[in-house]
């Protein structure tokens, strides 16, 4: 399962989502700006507060790191 933690105007979040869409990867988006529990969950998982954070089958990727995403997804 893939979860993307985002904020509304963050360009790297948009880029990460578009990248997943382009590769036909289904994902759940969680906006941590609106959902404080989700913000805590993201911080707990990634040990930091910057967005985007991607949880790809329990592999945590901070930032729009294409190489990291490719590796986690086996692209």
């Amino acid at each position: 399962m893939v979860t993307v933690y985002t904020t509304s105007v963050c360009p790297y979040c948009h880029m990460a989502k578009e990248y997943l869409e382009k590769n036909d990867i289904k994902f759940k988006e969680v906006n941590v700006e609106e959902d404080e529990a989700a913000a805590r969950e993201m911080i707990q998982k990634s040990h930091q507060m910057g967005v985007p954070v991607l949880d790809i089958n329990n592999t945590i990727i901070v930032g729009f790191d294409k190489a990291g995403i490719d590796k986690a997804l086996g692209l």
Partner: protein
Amino acid sequence: MYELIIIGGGPAGVAAGVYAARKKINTLFLTKDFGGQSLVSAGIKNWIGVKDISGFELAKNLEGHLRDQEDIEIKDNVFVSKIEKQGEVISVFTDKGDKFETKTILLTAGSRHKRLNVPGEDKYDGKGVFYCSTCDAPLMKNKTTAVVGGGNSGFEAAMDLLPYANKIYILEYTEECKADSVTCDKVRASGKSQEITMAEVKEIFGDEFVKGIRYQNRKTGEMKELSVEGVFVEIGFQPNSESVKDLIDLDKYGRIIIDQKTQKTSSEGIWAAGDVTDVLYNQNNIAAGDAIKAVLNIYDYLKIK
């Protein structure tokens, strides 16, 4: 061998790419991504012809405009590590291990966020130290924050923080903040901001996350502490000129010295435009215009070669 390689996908590079394609110059376009520094802007209100556009949309438009050109080869997700010159052949090396040869180069690689280089900055990167206020300001809901830098980018970061943070300290190194009055007025009117001038940041501290910032008053020498949970670093930009540092003349800030009329650098066959150069004003519109100037000059140069 290419006639031209353009390096960098900000407004300068894309403007150059569109012109080069329309002039049918045999061009290779190399970039990591599109949009340049404005990518992280929430709203750009001075890109001429468009009233208001987000950095992300601007990046999309730039990329779309470039990809719409028929006569240009584009490789993105590529970082240029080194440029070498032998006689009239210029070689461009990438992080992917590729080497491309060309007659001319237009370097529009822009600049990147300058770091503070103080203890705690690396340790708390993402843990309270941030470089993208558009991205990370929403995480600062009801928190006390500091912005380091009282220039335009500093005050824009403060603007991004206004809807979320309950207090924003703005630490400025010099005697006064130098942001545009429109932005300053808005930030000041919020009542949430407090400007501290003559402040030199010495340390960012905390436990797992940032708890505070230590700075010295440059006038009195006094050390002071602020309790903050977020530090947004906006102290200016550093030119991405490393790939050519042994090849062409740079000024003391590492910016490429150019001939203002033609955008030529000190090395024949290499031109530069935008924020990687010693241009006086760092603006999207100016970067685009300067890059076009460069391509037209390159076109003339290739014709007589």
